[in-house]
């Protein structure tokens, strides 16, 4: 077993925990409002493109 220095081992543990903190939030469901928002933005964009095309 190769031992890293105490400092980098501490850093490694901290980073592992930081990853876990991040992943804990990452695995939460993304609220539907974002899917709705993206759909609205797309629809708006399409409407604008149509308007441009009619000019």
């Amino acid at each position, binding site marked *: 077993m190769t031992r890293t220095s105490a400092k980098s081992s501490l850093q490694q543990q901290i*980073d592992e925990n930081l990853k876990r903190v991040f992943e804990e939030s990452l695995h939460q469901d993304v609220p539907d409002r974002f899917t709705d928002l993206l759909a609205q933005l797309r629809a708006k964009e399409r409407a604008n493109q149509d308007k441009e095309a009619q000019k």
Partner: protein
Amino acid sequence: MTAPRDPRDELPEHLPALRAFGISLTRNATEADDLVQETIVKAWSNFDRFQAGTDLRAWLFTILRNTFYSDRRKKRREVADPDGLHAQTLFDKPHHDGRLAMTDFIRAFDQLSPEHREVLMLVGANGYSCEQVSEMMGVAVGTVKSRTNRARARLAQLLHLEEGEGLLDAQTAATMAVMTRSGVQAA
């Protein structure tokens, strides 16, 4: 090399990470969601400025963190969670795997400044290089490096872990499967 995809199509894939980054800055899911919403709208109207083929997630993170800091300046509102309520509500699962106890870790993380949480999330958790983060934050690489070091040191201090102190290395930790939380604190 495949042709770069339309960032509009790619955006939904980055929402969980964007939201997680938002939560790490605000420590509050509701505020994070508002932040993500603002980020999506801003990104959408600025996609012509996005360089195809570059890291879309980093670009979105940049918009989110800039929005966070400018909102914060506007509101001048305290968003900290000194009692660690967030930790209690979101992270109540016990971790008996010999590594740092998660609830203690979260509580310490919550006490950091958003600036410290930011660099730790970008460098420590997401593995961005200090160079990448310096571009995202619009500061010098040296600033990112020193801020990351200070943030790690502060976290270690809050966890009562001195740098250079003989702590369990990851492999040892993994083998010590049933170490209790009090045992870790005593280490």
